[in-house]
């Protein structure tokens, strides 16, 4: 009988795992597509920096279940399903990506930036050839933190019908079935560990360059 349960879990689990990965991947891609350019702009202007970090910071403080809840009744951007979950995940992932992009660029040695300008690099060249490469390990560290968090937070997406490994966890809680809870929690935890190690290794390789 136990093997029957396992069989079912395995079959359904594959599908949920893929859903989960898609949620995380799409959210992270959007968070990076917004966070990195915004971070670049914020590094260049103190005013943009204050606003951007404040907004991203506020997003971060909303409890995750509440944020999913808030988004459901909002027309167009909200509602039941994947897109609402992704929106919420982006809100959480944005701050680490944004903040580390800003920190990384502002952390570039003043003498190095100065000589880049003095040698006649255009602002765009300074950014592309000096600031971004030197900030890359820090930016990647932000992406890593955000990815690990998103993998965990994405389990809550099941609560608003977005699927993913959270489906097992919520079903397990509802039916007081520890096995189901673990079937969701363990793969999610493993996924987080793998992402952490993989991105960590990449980060290390970039910083020795």
């Amino acid at each position, binding site marked *: 009988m136990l093997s029957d349960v396992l069989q079912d879990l395995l079959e359904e689990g594959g599908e949920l795992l893929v859903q989960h990965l898609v949620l995380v991947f799409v959210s992270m891609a959007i968070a990076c597509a917004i966070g990195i350019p915004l971070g670049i702009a914020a590094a260049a202007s103190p005013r943009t920096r204050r606003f951007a970090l404040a907004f991203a910071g506020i997003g971060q403080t909303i409890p995750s279940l509440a944020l999913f809840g808030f988004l459901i009744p909002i027309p167009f951007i909200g509602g039941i399903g994947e897109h609402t979950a992704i929106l919420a995940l982006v809100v959480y992932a944005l701050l680490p990506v944004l903040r580390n992009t800003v920190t990384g660029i502002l952390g570039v*040695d003043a003498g190095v930036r*100065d000589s880049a*300008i003095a*040698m006649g690099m255009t602002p765009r060249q300074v950014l592309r050839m000096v600031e971004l490469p030197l900030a890359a390990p820090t930016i990647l560290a932000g992406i890593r933190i955000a990815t690990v968090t998103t993998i965990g937070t994405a389990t809550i997406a099941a609560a608003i019908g977005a699927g993913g490994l959270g489906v097992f966890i919520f079903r397990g809680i509802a039916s007081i079935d520890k096995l189901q809870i673990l079937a969701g929690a363990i793969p999610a935890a493993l996924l987080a560990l793998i992402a952490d190690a993989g991105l960590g290794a990449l980060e290390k390789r970039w910083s020795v360059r």
Partner: protein
Amino acid sequence: MPEIEFRNVGYAVGGRQILCDISFSVEAGETLVLLGRSGSGKTTALRLINAMLLPASGELRVAGRPTTAHDRVALRRSIGYVIQDAGLFPHFTVARNVGLVPSLENWPREKVNARVAELLDRVGLPSQEFANRKPRELSGGQRQRVGVARALAADPRILLFDEPFGALDPVTRLDLQNEFLRLRDELRKTSVFVTHDVREAMRLATRIALLDQGRLAFLGTPAEFRRSDNPEAARFLEVLRPDGAAC
């Protein structure tokens, strides 16, 4: 026509006057040393020359044209710039650091490579051995040599130095000063050299411009400087006296 000309140049930040009514010119091929205490405005004056800063009043001419009328990027590429700790790009190899301005200027790759090899040999770093190293794999003195090679790369008419040898031990510093004199005699570049070390100023300068709290306190040859009765010059000359060295 002087290569660089300060005409009543003033510079202020946030209502604070940092440079005040500075006028002097630098002739082609000469080495003008900007001497002054910490905070006297030497770096500020230097950065006005390559348009990293623009004068608040007066006018600064390079090659006969005000810096405000130059294309800034083009102007900077025609002026070599060396700072303390060299400001090398830590993620570039020595070769890529040295070849940077030629690459920005889209020289063909072989020409860049040949130029890099030539310059590294010229500053005493055999390119075989050093071209592929990263800056952190060099000593402070070697980094400074790379900094000089990088500044020379696109054959600029003007070189700016901001305390380039400030962080080096006295013996290495002397080596590099001698190297500087040798290169100067070979290449005949117009140089402006910032230092607070009066010995270095006396060794390297064809003329010394002494800055005191943002004003030009003295302008003349090292021999004239030695005889000057300007009070700020006298303070610097005290350092040169044997008993002055003790305190």
